[in-house]
Every structure is written in structure tokens, then in C-alpha cells.
């Protein structure tokens, strides 16, 4: 695999695709290791955005003029691209949202309100992002349902037997991430889904951290809902998607009311459009959605197995190098991980380290990463997190390790 990677990947060429990687921060070449928060954008995505607003801009699905049809066609092309990217059965199963957060809120407010009642249970895991905790808390509070949480091991893996023990006929939904933004853990979602289905529960997979790293096949997984954010996949911010099985989407009530989502409106009664339009009220981020296709094409051109193998190579290179730093504790040591490296020094605050790396042009993430319950479970206030993408290099990892060494000296 590694040989194949080296043969097909020209990282220097890839780096040239990203204008921001040619810039300097505080007088140093940018080392961008905050990819789990958002990835940088290749020129093809920037060009697609520019091209859309320069030559296509019109509102979609309504106009009969040339530009409206061109914009609609491009918008719907992205829907097909996402369908194919996730291997969904039909394009109508892809709903555009502002991102994963909105996709999860959509499911909580439609499927959730319709199917979760008093005494019912929703299951999440300890390593969820706040966006996959709070919407379910709000729903459970409103309905008198209970939120159950799957415990994890100290290494950062779901305790599967404990998960099985939580499942019952009261379980209406299981919502877990495919990969943890804080720990990098890749969760055994296929098995999680199978067990949930066995008790008649539906499953939502938060794919925000997985979709740019792993090959995702929603039909093989058999998940009921899958969410993603374009900006973590080299695409624009403010664009995401919800996948849902068609018959489920069809049976769900609408999310927001407005234009686009209706069939007929009178002051007495409104009938609703069919999926996906039923869930896409108002004018969406058309330019962003159109440019998202360029990001998907970019990933496809390199190939997801190639990306996964290269990122694994970076993680395997970085992990022992970081582990050698005096006093470093790795947070998240799961067997299967995406390219996320979280670590703490018990005697140096993550904020101090983050600020000093920033003065050298190195961008890492510090803090609780919107996973406060996970921080409580691990009994730490926060972590330092380096997360790698296709354009990062071993040289950047070396540079970061050296910069950390220098910083530690300063604080100790």
C-alpha cells in the first residue's frame, strides 16, 4: 500500500493546489495542522465559486430563464455527486444543509419529534461532539425521553458490551460519530447499526470527521441517516448534507416552512413537496453547493484509499515522534484512528503551547474541541490536537515537534 502511495502521490504538487499553503503566518511558512476543524480549499474549489458567481448566479428550481436552469442543473449535479460519493441509492436521499450540525438538528426536529415519545430512549456515545449531544438533549427534554450514553475505555474506544446492554425496545434512535474529532477513534459503526436495527431502532451516523478520510458506503453500512460537512472535505463552509433512506425521509414531517418545500399553498392548507425539496426551504447556499462538487471531484481524483493510506502514514510517522516528547500523554489510543493526534502535557497548559506554536506559524487546535463530556470522562480540561490532511508532510511534523520542544523549555 505504502509503495502505491509513494508512486501515485506527488505531495508537492498537491500543496501547490492550495493557495493558502503558500502564505506566511507571523513571518513563518504556514504549517496548518487544524484540519479536523476545517480543511483548506484547493484552487479548483475557489475557481468553481468564482465561476458560479461570475457566470451562473440565479435562483434555482423556479426560474425558466437560461441562468436559472444552468444554476439548477449545477446544483443538482452536486446532489448526484454526493449520492455517488456515499453510494446512496437515489439522489433524492441527499438533502443539502448548512453542515453536519444542521443535518442533525433536522433529524431531531423531524424524525425525532415524530418518533421519540415519553419513556423512549436515544443512545449516543461519550465521545460525541456537542452538535451530536445537544439536539438530542433538547428533544428528550421536550418529549420526556431519556438520553443514554455509551461508555468508553481509557484508550478511547466504545465498550461494545455496554452499548448492547443499553439497547432495548425503548431505543428509538442511536446517534454516534463515525470518527471522533478529539480522539480520532474510528467507531465500529457497521456493528453498532446492526445491533440497533435488531431492536428496531434507527441509526444516525455523524460523518463529519470521517467523510474526507474513509470510503463511505451508506448502503453497505445500512445506516438510516448520515451527515457530513463540506468544509471538512476541502469544500466551502456553510454547506453540508444529510443522507436519509428515502422511505424514512418520505414519512418524516417537514423541517422549516417556506418556499421550495411546498407543493400547494393556500391560506387554509399547505401540502408539502417530496424529498429532498420538502427539507430545503428557502434559497440555499447555491454557490457553495456548486463548488462542493469541485471538492468531491478533487478527492475522487486523488482517490480515497490513497488519501487514507497517506494520512495513515503521516499518523504513523507523527505518533512515535510526538510520544518521545518529555511528559507527553497521548489522548486517544484506539486501534483504528483517522489522522488526529491529541496530546497533553500535565505541566504545560494547552493554551500556552497553542499560542507559542502560533507565533511560529504552526496552527494546531487547543481546548475541549466541543466535547466537554469527553474531557470530563478523561479528567482533563482540554488537549492539544494536530490533525493531518492530504497536503501535510513529514517535514511539517518534524518542524512541529521541534517547535514544541523549544516551547516546553520556555515553560519548564
Amino acid at each position, binding site marked *: 500500500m505504502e509503495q502505491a502511495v509513494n508512486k501515485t502521490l506527488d505531495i508537492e504538487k498537491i500543496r501547490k493546489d492550495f493557495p493558502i499553503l503558500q502564505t506566511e503566518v507571523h513571518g513563518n511558512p504556514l504549517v496548518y495542522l487544524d484540519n479536523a476543524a476545517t480543511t483548506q480549499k484547493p484552487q479548483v474549489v475557489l475557481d468553481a465559486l468564482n465561476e458560479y458567481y461570475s457566470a451562473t448566479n440565479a435562483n434555482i428550481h423556479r426560474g425558466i430563464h437560461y441562468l436559472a436552469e444552468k444554476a439548477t442543473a449545477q446544483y443538482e449535479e452536486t446532489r448526484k455527486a454526493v449520492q455517488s460519493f456515499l453510494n446512496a441509492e437515489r439522489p433524492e436521499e441527499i438533502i443539502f444543509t448548512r453542515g453536519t450540525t444542521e443535518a442533525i438538528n433536522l433529524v431531531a426536529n423531524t424524525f425525532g419529534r415524530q418518533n421519540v415519545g415519553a419513556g423512549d430512549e436515544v443512545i449516543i456515545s461519550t465521545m460525541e461532539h456537542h452538535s451530536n449531544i445537544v439536539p438530542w438533549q433538547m428533544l428528550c427534554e421536550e418529549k420526556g425521553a431519556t438520553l443514554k450514553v455509551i461508555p468508553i475505555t481509557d484508550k478511547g474506544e466504545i465498550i461494545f458490551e455496554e452499548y448492547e446492554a443499553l439497547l432495548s425496545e425503548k431505543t428509538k434512535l442511536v446517534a454516534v460519530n463515525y470518527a471522533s474529532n478529539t480522539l480520532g477513534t474510528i467507531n465500529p459503526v457497521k456493528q453498532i447499526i446492526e445491533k440497533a436495527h435488531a431492536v428496531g431502532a434507527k441509526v444516525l451516523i455523524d460523518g463529519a470527521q470521517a467523510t474526507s478520510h474513509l470510503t463511505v458506503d451508506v448502503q453497505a453500512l445500512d445506516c438510516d441517516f448520515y451527515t457530513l460537512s463540506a468544509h471538512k472535505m476541502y469544500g466551502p463552509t456553510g454547506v453540508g448534507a444529510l443522507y436519509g433512506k428515502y422511505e424514512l425521509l418520505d414519512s418524516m414531517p417537514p423541517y422549516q416552512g417556506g418556499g421550495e418545500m411546498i407543493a400547494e399553498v393556500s391560506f387554509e392548507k399547505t401540502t408539502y413537496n417530496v424529498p429532498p425539496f420538502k427539507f430545503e426551504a428557502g434559497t440555499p447556499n447555491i454557490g457553495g453547493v456548486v463548488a462542493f462538487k469541485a471538492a468531491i471531484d478533487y478527492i475522487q481524483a486523488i482517490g480515497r484509499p490513497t488519501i487514507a493510506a497517506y494520512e495513515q502514514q503521516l499518523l504513523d510517522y507523527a505518533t512515535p515522534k510526538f510520544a518521545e516528547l518529555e511528559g507527553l500523554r497521548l489522548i486517544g489510543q484506539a486501534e483504528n484512528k483517522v489522522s488526529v493526534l491529541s496530546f497533553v502535557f500535565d505541566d504545560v497548559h494547552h*493554551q500556552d503551547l497553542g*499560542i507559542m506554536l502560533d507565533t511560529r506559524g504552526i496552527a494546531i487546535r487547543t481546548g475541549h474541541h466541543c466535547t466537554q463530556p469527553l474531557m470530563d470522562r478523561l479528567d482533563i480540561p482540554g488537549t492539544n490536537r494536530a490533525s493531518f490532511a492530504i497536503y501535510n508532510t513529514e517535514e511539517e511534523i518534524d518542524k512541529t515537534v521541534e517547535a514544541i520542544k523549544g516551547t516546553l523549555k520556555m515553560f519548564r
Partner: protein
Amino acid sequence: MTINAIQDEIIEEFELFDNWTDKYAYIVEIGKKLPDLAEEHKTEENIIKGCQSKVWMTARMEGDQAVFDADSDAIIVKGLISLLLRVLSNQTPEEIAKTDLYFMEKIGLAQHLSMTRSNGLAAMVKQIKLYAVAFQAMNA
């Protein structure tokens, strides 16, 4: 010394540094030197929550001056606290309440520290001013 004289003094001191690493090295040094707040004062009541780090602060009157002690779990923040205390502690509540803090901006720290980082400090300045107003009211 007046509050503004101390602010000007700090601005002058920082003019000696020509890069950020040196500025931060200095801030870290004075952060390390600032005495820790006794554990019994690190209570929920005295905490000022920032996004990433915690700040604890106590206040009292000594004669006609307000005296503040503060601490943080992060050293750079502690260094910045040290600067703030140098400017605002041991001054009369009247002076503190009406002061215009400009040294952070002048030494370039306000723009260099992002909002999330400076939040805790901004909250601390606000808290010091609230104490000053409260002390004034108590004396009135």
C-alpha cells in the same frame, strides 16, 4: 504612580522587543513570577471563565486603595494578568473606574490574541471595574 504613567512605562518596555517570541518569553517570565493565589481562593465564586483557560481573582480594600490578586492555570494568561495588576491594583477605586486601558492595544497584544483567548482577560478587566464601582459605593 498614576495608572497612565504605568501604562506608558509598560509600552516603553515592550518597545525593546522586536519579535513576538521575545515578547512572549517576557510575558511567560513575569507569569512565572506572579505569586500563586492560595488554593482556598480558587473557588467557583472567584473564577472568571475564559474559553480555554481559567482566571481566579480576589479583591479587597487597603486604606483608600483597591488591591487585586489573580491567578490562572495558563502561564501566558498569568503573565498578562501580572501586567494588568501592575496597572490597576493598588489604585483608588475612583481612578480604576474612570481609567481608559490602552496599553494592551499599544503593545500589540489585543490584536495578537484572538477573541477566544482574550475573552478571559476582557472579563477580568470588566470584573476589576465592577469591583471598583462597588468599592466606591461602599465608601460613599
